[in-house]
């Protein structure tokens, strides 16, 4: 039963992305085409160890042009350095036993530097991996290692990286700005969800507290992963990065401020759940109204806006009732202020426009 449910979820996910608008689908199609083209290519030119071309082309092909250029560059210098070290070692070591020991040492190093994370430069991961591959060939293959093989490995990598880059530019190209805009929409939705979760806390919905916390951590993690776009965009923008760098700093500051604002609301919601005095409810209500109203302005999607308005009205009634019950006058609410939400959104839109203009060369 559980397995069927999981399988259905997987299939649903796969189905939902099966269109040319999906970045995953475009990347998968592009990789498949590049892989298909590379096989006849290396057979036709009878390249030594030609499968290396295909492997490099598939590995360097990332979802955006900037990411591909970044990975290609890192892989290229990593491979180059790796094969140079291996070739140097092979000039002096001819014993099979010593070679096997060296393979084990570099295998250890390869997996010591986690190959699955982007925490460090990908080039560092490739160096020991390339050494292992060259040493393995000399150990196992009937083709004994010679300068020609080392040279072949070098030009195979160059051809593979070139093919991967060409594919990214020509087949369903995606620029960083597209992916950035895509994740911004996702982030906007997450922020909205977080806001709703906080509102649920005010309305005493069961488990709202935990849900809000989970959303908060999720948003922080998303903001964390978004940093890669700034790095990758530099590969696309070349010399026009100064503007972007300035915006980057501002964006990060604003994200922090937004998180801070939500955090403050979150704290107040929790206090409210603990049963706070009316005196504390006044600034709380004002805070919700201000943040909510300005957040409302920043929503583009109509459905989201309507549900958000409904929730705000419900919340206002709820809090007003509490105030009235205790014979307190209703608050005079002010609808003007510049909240970080609106400002953040404005900055994001401007940022995307700036990147568009810079990349289009206007």
């Amino acid at each position: 039963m559980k397995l069927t449910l999981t399988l259905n979820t997987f299939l649903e996910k796969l189905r939902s992305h099966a269109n040319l608008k999906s970045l995953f689908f475009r990347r998968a199609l592009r990789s498949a085409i590049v892989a298909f083209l590379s096989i006849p290519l290396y057979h036709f030119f009878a390249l030594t160890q030609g499968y290396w071309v295909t492997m490099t082309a598939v590995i360097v092909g990332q979802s955006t042009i900037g990411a591909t250029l970044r990975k290609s560059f890192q892989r290229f210098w990593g491979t180059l350095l790796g094969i140079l070290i291996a070739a140097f070692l092979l000039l002096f070591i001819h014993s099979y036993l010593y070679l096997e020991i060296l393979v084990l040492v570099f295998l250890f190093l390869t997996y010591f530097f986690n190959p699955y994370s982007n925490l460090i430069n990908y080039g560092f991961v490739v160096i020991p991996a390339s050494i292992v591959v060259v040493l393995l060939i000399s150990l196992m293959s009937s083709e004994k290692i010679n300068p020609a093989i080392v040279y072949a490995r070098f030009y195979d990598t160059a051809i593979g990286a070139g093919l991967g880059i060409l594919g990214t530019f020509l087949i369903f190209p995606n620029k960083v700005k597209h992916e950035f805009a895509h994740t911004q929409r996702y982030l906007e939705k997450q922020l909205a969800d977080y806001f709703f979760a906080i509102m649920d806390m005010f309305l005493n919905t069961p488990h709202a507290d935990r849900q809000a916390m989970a959303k908060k951590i999720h948003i922080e993690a998303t903001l964390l992963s978004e940093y890669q776009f700034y790095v990758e965009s530099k590969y696309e923008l070349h010399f026009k990065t100064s503007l972007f760098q300035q915006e980057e700093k501002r964006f990060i500051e604003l994200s922090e401020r937004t998180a801070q604002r939500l955090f403050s609301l979150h704290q107040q919601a929790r206090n409210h759940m603990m049963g706070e005095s009316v005196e504390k409810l006044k600034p709380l209500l004002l805070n919700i109204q201000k943040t909510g109203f300005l957040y409302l302005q920043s929503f583009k999607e109509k459905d989201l806006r309507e549900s958000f308005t409904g929730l705000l009205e419900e919340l206002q009634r709820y809090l007003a009732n509490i105030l009235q019950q205790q014979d307190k006058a209703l608050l005079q609410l002010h609808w003007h202020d510049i909240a970080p939400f609106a400002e953040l959104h404005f900055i994001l839109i401007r940022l995307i426009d700036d990147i568009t203009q810079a990349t289009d060369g206007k």
Partner: protein
Amino acid sequence: MPWLKTLQQFYVDHIDPDGIQPFQAVRTVVAAVLAILFYHSLSWPQAYWVLFSTVLILQTYNAAAPKQKWFSLLMTGASAVILTFIASIIGKYILIIGVFFAITTFISVYLNVISSNTANAAFFVNLFCLYAGSVSVSWNDTVERTICVLAGFLISVMVCACLWPERLPDTIRLIIAQNLSRLSELSRTLSERYHDTKAIAVRRNRFIRGLQRARQTIPSEEIQSWQMIHQIEYLYEIILSLHEIKKLLEAHHILILIHKELSILLRRLNWLLRQFSLHIQHTNTPAPRISKFIYLLRTFEKHYNNHFKSFNNDQILKFIIYMDNIQKLERYVNNLAELSKRMEYLS
């Protein structure tokens, strides 16, 4: 030696925040030694596939999420055996192998929709297709190759079962302990290096990643472990509140005594979190006693309440959100102590 400490810190910050890679590397090397010994004993021309398959299949176990390690290993191994066989047979037909490889590549990249770990495993299987299909071989070689991949698969299963087999309770215990120690480290950095925004960001990011990993790893049935994670999250917010108060106190040059008490309180809290982390990770480490911390907390509250009357309106507004949190600190620390005692059920 300060340089050694710096190097160690660099390794933890940039290379291995989870502290699991040395185990993975040793496991890979042991498996590779077994594979080398095995292929030497075979003396087949295709015997090197044993080493190749052992190393690659083992990586899916290393890379997979704790809940899916064995499933991922078995699926990858079985797929590798089947696809190596097929790719070796069709390797002589360039266009067919081209189409075949294009399809497997499409699948391996598209699986990123589900998770990057699944896509990684599929990528490793894809490499078997690529190598097997790159050179045309005879029927005998195809059979030999397939048997060697199967042998490599069995070696990796054996090594994973014997060397640091990753049990879910151990993983949960480790994750919780890591989150506590990362929270302690973040808090210490906030106290001692509050001008160093980069150092704070690194530690905060590591803590957030740790929490996210915990959320992805701990099954919903593990109620006690989830409660522990919730307590850590609440404490994260409270610690942020404490540091906000500290900043306010410094900015306004007020209440030196409260500031001093707060610093002591924070130091004790950091120590407490670290000790809880050690206790959860190594059950033989005794649980820390929280009585001194509670005493310090009450002293701080007493000082705060004494000075509260002298606050102006602006100060009251700024302090009130954070101070409410501090009043809950005692409850959360008590909960943490209670839950850490109950964590013994995980062993």
